[in-house]
């Protein structure tokens, strides 16, 4: 069974395909992207990601998918520490860079107190000379930019309490999308969905597999960031739409550690989250800072929910170390490695007998872009798997095995 992280990576790749769909160029049509994402999320393999099993009995897969879309794709993203932009901004920029009209390749996101010689307007766009004839020629960059600037002005620019963007803005000024002399202010808490809706309508196709993978890497990162509170709630067995606006990410994580502590004290045979006396013992080792005392936590809505047998069945078993390790890994932003480095790592894994020659061959083939159905046609692959779906399952498991192995390397 794939873990939630693996499912999220596949979803990110789906979205990347949607952001590159078209023969000669790409027309970004948000309603189509949304419909396809919802259709994908309604599939049985995404039940765990969208928390379908946690919902009310009358919530079907489509409703769970819609809830997920609202909570994750439309989640207001925050800056991380002193960084000038977040991953939602980076996705927006990556799409703008691919704008089909000439000039988009020079686009940038800059923080400025003053823009050019003009005062710091929310938007400044020279009038375009070329008119865009529907269904035919491309719009000029000025037309394109004007439409985007308008869409950007319709986004709520408020900054949530606690978002570091407030300080960054005071220090470095507002964030602007800039092309030449044109500029438009970009909301600090731009969501994934807004990044897609505000991008140029017509964009260029990605050039090759490497550029596709680079975008996919970025989409994975932005989805991971947006999915975090939702995913943590699912891990705690709670139906996210009921809790996501009530609990902070920090509070959810502290509660997860506390639950891990209670489960450790109770042992694997326990059928529920025990008694107040067990909670008191656990409290000595792992407090939940959002609550003053263990009794307060026990009697809270959250405490009551966690004691419910229905929720207990869905709590993902993770140790405190695993939860902390996940938190720490968020501080580091991984990059795609190049072909030479990739092959070197594959060879090291093979030499250490963590993977065998067959695993290595499959990894190399999919990195080069071989589709699973084509890979299955190879004789040595058909000999192992009856159908392409079996090979897909194996690829999924291989990805998880490698992720697990690398996580263990980190602990050395």
């Amino acid at each position, binding site marked *: 069974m794939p873990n939630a992280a693996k499912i999220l*990576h*596949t979803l990110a*790749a*789906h979205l*990347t*395909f*949607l952001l590159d*769909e078209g023969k000669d160029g790409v027309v970004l049509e948000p*309603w189509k992207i*949304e419909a*396809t994402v919802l*259709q994908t999320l309604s599939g049985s393999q995404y039940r765990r990601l969208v928390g379908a099993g946690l919902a009310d009995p009358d919530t079907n897969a489509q409703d769970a998918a*819609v809830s997920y879309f609202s909570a994750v794709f439309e989640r207001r993203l925050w800056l991380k520490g002193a960084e000038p932009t977040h991953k939602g901004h980076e996705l927006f920029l990556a799409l703008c860079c691919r704008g089909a009209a000439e000039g988009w390749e020079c686009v940038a996101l800059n923080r400025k107190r003053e823009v050019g010689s003009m005062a710091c*307007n929310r938007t*400044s766009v020279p*009038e375009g000379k070329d008119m865009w*004839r*529907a*269904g035919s020629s491309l*719009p000029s960059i000025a037309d394109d930019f*004007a*439409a985007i600037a*308008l*869409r950007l*002005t319709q986004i709520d620019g408020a900054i949530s309490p606690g978002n570091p963007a407030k300080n960054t803005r005071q220090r470095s000024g507002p964030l602007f999308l800039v092309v030449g002399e044109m500029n438009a202010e970009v909301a600090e808490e731009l969501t994934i969905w807004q990044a897609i809706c505000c991008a140029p309508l017509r964009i260029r196709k990605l050039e090759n597999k490497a550029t*596709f*993978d680079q975008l*996919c*890497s970025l989409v*994975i990162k932005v989805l991971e960031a947006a999915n975090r509170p939702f995913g943590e709630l699912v891990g705690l067995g709670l139906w996210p739409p009921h809790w996501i606006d009530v609990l902070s990410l920090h509070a959810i994580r502290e509660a997860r550690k506390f639950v891990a502590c209670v489960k450790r004290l109770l042992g694997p045979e326990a059928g529920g989250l025990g008694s107040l006396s067990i909670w008191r013992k656990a409290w000595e080792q792992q407090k939940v800072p959002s609550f003053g005392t263990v009794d307060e936590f026990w009697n809270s809505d959250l405490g009551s929910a966690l004691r419910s047998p229905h929720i207990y069945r869905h709590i993902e078993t993770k140790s405190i170390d695993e939860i902390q390790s996940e938190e720490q*890994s968020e501080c580091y932003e*991984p*990059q*795609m*490695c190049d072909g030479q*480095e*990739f092959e070197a790592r594959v060879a090291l*894994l093979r030499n*250490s*007998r*963590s*993977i065998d020659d067959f695993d290595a061959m499959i*990894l190399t083939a*999919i990195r080069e872009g071989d*589709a*699973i159905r084509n890979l299955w046609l190879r004789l040595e692959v058909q000999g192992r798997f009856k159908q*392409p779906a079996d090979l897909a399952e194996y*690829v*999924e498991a291989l*990805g998880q*095995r*490698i*992720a*697990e*192995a*690398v996580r*263990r*390397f*980190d602990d*050395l």
Partner: protein
Amino acid sequence: MIYDIMSHPDNLIKVTSGIASLPMELKDKKPWRDFAHTVEVITGSALAEHERHTSKVAATETVPSATRTGRAGGGKPRHYVTLFELERLAAASAEELSVRKGELYTRDGNIVGKFAPNDGHLRLSLQLKGYALLSTYGGRMARLTCFNGVQSDSFRFDERGSAELELPDDAATQEGLGRVTLDFSED
């Protein structure tokens, strides 16, 4: 033989001993994390491509079965193609953009839309302008889709290039009318 690292402690020993014997520069965590991320990307892409191929979830031109805020037309799936985009954008000046209340335009002005509240709904009137558009699209079925997913039922332009439709008068529709696409049926 395929090793199952997660379930066989022996294999963990192989993994850790393999890493422990690596040259110093390769013990660095960063390249391994980068490698793991690269594996996430390539396996995710391969699996998504496989899902797209097998279940045909790729976006098609057919009417979707559901949208978040709107309702797709029922009955036999109809094939649409997006031909026009309308915005509430009026003439842009060097300093500012203005939104013209209650009106929509294509950039060339050949399709104009006007909307106003009417008995709890938003009544939207669309008009095709010019002989070329009238002769091509007059009498054709169409559908309107807002950028935020709100979608109209199918409607027909009459032979004079006019169409009227009713949309829910709610915040989502008001927002969505900032930018809409007009899709014409190919059937």
